[in-house]
């Protein structure tokens, strides 16, 4: 098993953020975010490293990682598309958007396209109901979607923008 380490910059961030909490335990979520920002996902090796940083056991880290949906336990594509499917978005046409993405990328939700470019996720409410239907593209919210808007988004990102 390969060892995982935080980059020196992230180690420095870790030390700095730790000072803001009365106990190191609170650093669980912030540290996992640092790992995911660094690697794009959280590997078992990284969980062991995090457990050492937080003076706890790997299983405690694992149970947290698997509870929160935003932590990726496997690598994602270059671009992560998360489409909201909850009530307001459904009422405003999210099904059409999801169907279009599935057809165009030739993948089902939870899968990554063959070229490794896009991972498609269908997620629960992102708190953007006024801009329904919407998706998050690498975390950035894109609202009031139409199929044309999604088409443009895919095209622009495939061109490396």
């Amino acid at each position, binding site marked *: 098993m390969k060892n995982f380490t935080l980059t020196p910059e992230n180690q420095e961030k870790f030390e700095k953020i730790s000072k803001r909490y009365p106990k190191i335990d609170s650093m669980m979520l912030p540290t996992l975010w640092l790992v995911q920002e660094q690697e794009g996902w959280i590997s078992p090796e990284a969980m062991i490293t995090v457990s050492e940083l937080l003076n706890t056991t790997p299983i405690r880290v694992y149970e947290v990682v698997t509870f929160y949906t935003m932590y990726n336990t496997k690598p994602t594509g270059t671009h992560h598309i998360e489409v909201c*499917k909850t009530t307001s978005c459904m009422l405003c046409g999210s099904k059409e958007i999801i169907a279009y993405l599935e057809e165009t990328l030739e993948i089902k939700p939870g899968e990554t396209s063959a070229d490794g470019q896009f991972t498609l996720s269908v997620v629960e409410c992102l708190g*953007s*109901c006024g801009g329904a239907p919407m998706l998050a593209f690498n975390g950035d919210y894109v609202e009031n979607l139409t199929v044309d808007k999604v088409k443009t988004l895919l095209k622009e990102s495939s061109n490396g923008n």
Partner: protein
Amino acid sequence: METKIVSKRFHIPESYKLEVAKKHGVYGSLEKLFTMTPDEVITAVEKSNLRGKGGGGASCGQKWRYMPLNDPRPAYLIVNADESEPGTFKDREVMDKDPHLLIEGIICSSYAMNIHTAYIYIRGEYKWLADRLNTAIDEAYEAGIIGETLMNGACDFKLDIVVHRGAGAYICGEKSALIESLEGKRGHPRLKPHQKECEWYFGDPATVNNVETIASVPEIVEFGYEAYTKHGTPKSPGTMLFALSGPVKNPGVYELAFGHKMIDVINTLGGGMKDGKKLKAVIPGGVSCPILTADEVNKAVLDYESMWDIGSTLGTGGMVIIDEDACMVEVAKNIIEFYHHESCGQCTPCREGTGWIDTILHKVIHQQGKLSDIDNISDVCGTLNGKTICVFAPAVADIIGSIVVKFRDEFETYILNNQGAEHE
């Protein structure tokens, strides 16, 4: 129609910047604050009858009184910015457009409760808002507004504000689950004490308040509780950020005094239904509140008491509008999928119950429904309600139960019209 207290700077371009917000009066309440004793601040908030805007509607002042007095332990203010209730997107407006108002509210609230560290627990998906808050907090530190003293020494009171990002769990909006998460654990709600008391962060006293609640405090401090109670109704004074989503012409967030008729808000601010469709139903305050039929919507008045009177709740004020084209079986399925996914799994009735309802509705939608399934759903709702640690399961029972009861005809027709159904 709108009454702008929390949203008074939303329309100003770049109001999230300190220099712009300051020009328009942000931190204006602090001069008055420093002339008041902490007890006077709490009394003002109590008298304003400011109520928790995160859905519960509990009195904010009373909640603050639960903090132990003259306690040697450090105390914490935890701002609940884990806005995840479907149909609710109001707190993001505050953080996006007026983050300094939130900081001002945190200063007032921390001063009142003698708190020197405040955490803002923000949902993980609001990454850009966490960045915006951090920028605003950095500005506030640099300008000497917070830090070792308040307002460059105007008040000898240390205050630190930390943004803590969640990672995608609806249940972390429940205050005790939120603290568990802040302590680095799974977001499992805690058992409630027999008597009302404060919350506990690593065993130290803490108060959890919603973003909008905290953002309402500066107005009460600066202009007195009378200025706040002159809006709204006697029992529900003040304003609330109401949100409209679904097929209306102008979805969005609107700040209104309590007491407006729901239908007027939908037709005036919301611009009415899109494409001339007929209104079928409204889920009034995030999807956890019992659904209202079109007839009930005509009678509904937007304040806590009126909503209870017609058998629903005001919740977060996030109204999900449903038009005649929507199939209520699909709406129920969509909502139960959400709850099934988000149940934290701690209590069996909730973990299993949400799954059962999801399975039954899946069957109905895939042409294998029976008429008896409708009663089975109501039955499971009964099994969920009141038998779990937190109010997640009762909320599921409320919304799913109300859809099944109020739209029973539609469920029956749906089941009978779908091939393969066994008629009983």
